[in-house]
């Protein structure tokens, strides 16, 4: 469907890739809703995927007592809700991540504060 308008209705999209210094990546940690919502991060496409676990996520999720217990080799990733297996040695772009992609990770055995999914 489209807008019903008296004249042409054509305006630029505000959030295209060119408008940002780096592509946006959305990241969510399943079962840990102490963090009220997933995060939005501008990340250079040549960032190695493995740098998320070592350099990016500690700064945003490190407050949670579960974070230090994560075994990254067992983390289960998904992209747009579908199971997904990234290669930590390759870059974000080489893993196929594009502007405004959404990825999530599940950390088996860790279900938040007293198992409350917080």
């Amino acid at each position, binding site marked *: 469907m489209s807008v019903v308008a008296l004249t042409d209705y054509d305006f630029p999209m505000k*959030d295209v890739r060119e408008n940002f*210094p780096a592509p946006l990546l*959305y990241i*969510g940690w399943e079962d840990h*809703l102490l963090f009220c919502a*997933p995060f939005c991060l501008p990340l250079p496409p040549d960032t190695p995927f493995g740098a998320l676990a070592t350099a990016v996520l500690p700064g945003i999720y490190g407050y949670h007592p579960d974070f230090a217990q994560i075994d990254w080799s067992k983390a289960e990733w998904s992209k747009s809700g579908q199971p997904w297996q990234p290669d930590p040695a390759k870059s974000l772009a080489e893993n196929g991540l594009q502007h405004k992609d959404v990825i999530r990770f599940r950390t088996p055995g860790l279900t938040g*504060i007293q198992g409350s999914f917080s």
Partner: protein
Amino acid sequence: MTPLEYYAHRGFAHVGRQFTGEGARVAAQMQSIDELRHYQTETHAISHYNKYFNGMHHANHWFDRVWYLSVPKSFFEDAITGGPFEFLVAVSFSFEYVLTNLLFVPFMSGAAHNGDMSTVTFGFSAQSDESRHMTLGIECIKFLLEQDPGNVAIVQKWIDKWFWRGYRLLTLVAMMQDYMLPKRVMSWKEAWEMYAEQNGGALFKDLARYGIREPAGWKQACEGKDHISHQAWNTFYNYNAAAPFHTWVPSAEEMDWLSEKYPESFDKYYRPRLEFLREQQQAGNRFYNKTLPMLCTTCQIPMLFTEEGDPSKICYRESDYFGNKYHFCSDHCKHIFDDEPEKYVQSWLPVHQIYQGHCFKPGTDPTKEGFDPLLAVLDYYEMDVGRDNFDFEGSEDQKNFAAWKGAAK
């Protein structure tokens, strides 16, 4: 909320000019004047509190800039750009007729119960207008439906859309009711059951003879009554460095009240989180989330809502529009986008605007050493950092509120 009354004034002045029938035209013009007066009266109510409390000095400046205020702002801008008929279905019917009691009654009862006579004075003054506004809404809907059977599907689509947008907007009210009133009146869940499920349910039974059914998101909205106030409070607790009001962890007695009012959800999902946050705060490690959240493209609320039937999982939906991804908090926000993508690709999403560099004061140099983006954004908001924001515990407002309560005894 105050600048919204001004938007309502503009909206009704505009549609009043577009109706040729004198009944709708005069009603819209009268309402336009009412809304302007509400804006003024609310401003007077706020100015009284502005003498004693922080975070009330800059409403108009904040309305165009502060992240969570883009939620009500985008709601109204969506309505006033929808054309006169959609505007009436949006504001006069879906908001004023179906949802307004959820705003006014608990709000005003809450104000009276807590000795906030300034707000009660405004409420009494506005309440008598509301019945007239509701009449405009219901009469225009019935008129549209009677004119042409082809209008039924169009009106139903707008009711589906605007019920959901209004419901999302009321998330803020749910949070205020359950967490912010010093003396609670009723829970959000009780208010929802009384004013939405009972009154609203009866209304849609009444409209069935016109071919109108209850809004598409009705069931999900009813399920949300156990969760949205807790989820919203956690969001403002997370991002309290960036909001010009205070948050706190409820006291033990308040948590018991929440357990009693929310037997299905509070102890299981929300109490452990709040008790953890209290422990951390008391140990001097108060949680402030400083990374920007993912937003829903339609309602512009951070993606804090959970899946229907599973409050442990954030609800994610997405659409592709000419190779660009757009994300949503719910099926209904996704449907609203999919119906008019050309409109919502223009959304001014605060998080994206910050990352595009549009939320710093002119002359700010983000490449300068030691640049703190959060402080630069708060400077652009013109928030008084350390007075308007952060935890209630230890704030100037806490001292002033204690002094006011002492004087009132």
